[in-house]
């Protein structure tokens, strides 16, 4: 248990995090594109991609909300050791992590304020599969249209309708990552 908590982080934190961030940035800048994120071996049920996202973006300044099966002892300890992020409820979090159904309802998360729309949560959604098909995406970052296997449609449509307020989503599955910012129109 102890070794599982302490191990599994980036082998070379500065450059591994730089690579991981470039992948996440490309994913957020180009909704619908899939990117590989490997190099982290987290305890179950966390996927390597979601773990890399946590290590790249989270620290003591970013309260995390864990949902469902992800809210377990092993993962709490791993996150505490590797990021130091405080674990909080949905209303106070900067990041939320879990399966799609465990993160509901979306109205529980901060969506920013009209003056500061950036003060909103980013949801890291673990999906059983992730592929570039399914819902049609349009908006900034997409030349014409893109596609992504979203777990829902109406939720993302109403999120986009709140622009510039809203939540941003990072989808992970295994070592794959994709993202859906609030600016993307979904159909």
């Amino acid at each position, binding site marked *: 248990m102890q070794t599982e908590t302490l191990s599994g982080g980036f082998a070379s934190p500065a450059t591994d995090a730089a690579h991981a961030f470039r992948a996440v940035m490309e994913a957020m*800048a180009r909704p619908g594109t899939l990117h590989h994120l490997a190099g982290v071996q987290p305890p179950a049920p966390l996927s390597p991609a979601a773990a890399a996202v946590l290590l790249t973006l989270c620290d003591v*300044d970013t309260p995390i909300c864990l949902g469902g099966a992800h809210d377990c002892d092993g993962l709490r300890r791993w996150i505490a050791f590797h990021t130091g992020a405080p674990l909080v409820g949905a209303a106070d979090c900067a990041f939320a992590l879990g399966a799609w159904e465990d993160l509901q309802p979306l109205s529980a998360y901060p969506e920013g304020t009209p003056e500061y729309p950036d003060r909103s949560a980013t949801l890291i959604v673990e999906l059983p599969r992730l592929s570039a098909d399914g819902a049609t995406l349009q908006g900034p970052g997409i030349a014409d249209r893109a596609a992504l296997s979203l777990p829902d449609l109406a939720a993302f449509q109403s999120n986009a309708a709140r622009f510039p307020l809203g939540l941003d989503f990072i989808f992970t599955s295994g070592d794959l990552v994709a993202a859906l910012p609030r600016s993307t129109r979904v159909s």
Partner: protein
Amino acid sequence: MTDAAYNFAYLDEQTKRMIRRAILKGLAIPGYQVPFASREMPMPYGWGTGGVQLTAAVMCPEDRFKVIDQGADDTTNAVSIRAFFERTAGVAATTRTDEATLIQTRHRIPEAPLRAGQVLVFQVPIPEPLRFLEPRESETRKMHALEEYGLMHVKLYEDISRHGHIATSYAYPVQVEGRYVMDPSPIPKFDNPKLGDCPAIQLFGAGREQRIYALPPYTRVVSLDFEDHPFEASKADHPCGLCGATDSYLDEVIMDDAGRRMFVCSDTDFCGQRQAAGHRGKDAA
């Protein structure tokens, strides 16, 4: 080569994470200025501390890094920032726009078209386009929140009533995806059309003012104008004296005290490559 006393790319990891989070929010809300806790950098404010912090946060060891200052690769600002990252990150530098994967720029967008996979980092002095019209940050925040941009159109209209045309020639305000009005940094308005529908990611950093904003690829960016006074991307009406290009942005160089002058491409890489390909202007030696 790398200075082992520093972390990769100079900044500590916690600072990079803070900047990275701001970049992601900036990309999610194109044109919106995200506040960030700008650090002191080993160079004065006004020398591109915002751009340098963005560059440090996105840089990977494999990047080919290019720095331009008003289009030139060989001016003091560009040389020192390039040397800074060669030393603290050990990245390979280049002056060629097409080879570079990460480009930090002061006040120009390269002439060569950018492509997917490239990141363009702008150095921004005053990120708030409404600042000279409304000095209070609390008010400009509210104006952005309410999408209250009438004042900016009044300013452009006053230009027309005073000069007969919109006299703003650089830092020409744009509206992003029909929502946020954004300062494109002091690029000449000649470069404004390159902001929109660009395949590369564009990041803007203001160190002293502690703001980061971004344009994802293929974002709709419109320069503000009026139906009867449409936006015009202007440049000096001359060919380049060295390479003869007629479609590039030109600098005016005073040659002597008798009023002789010469117009040359501000983008040194573009001009150099054209000359290497055999193009000659009227002033070429």
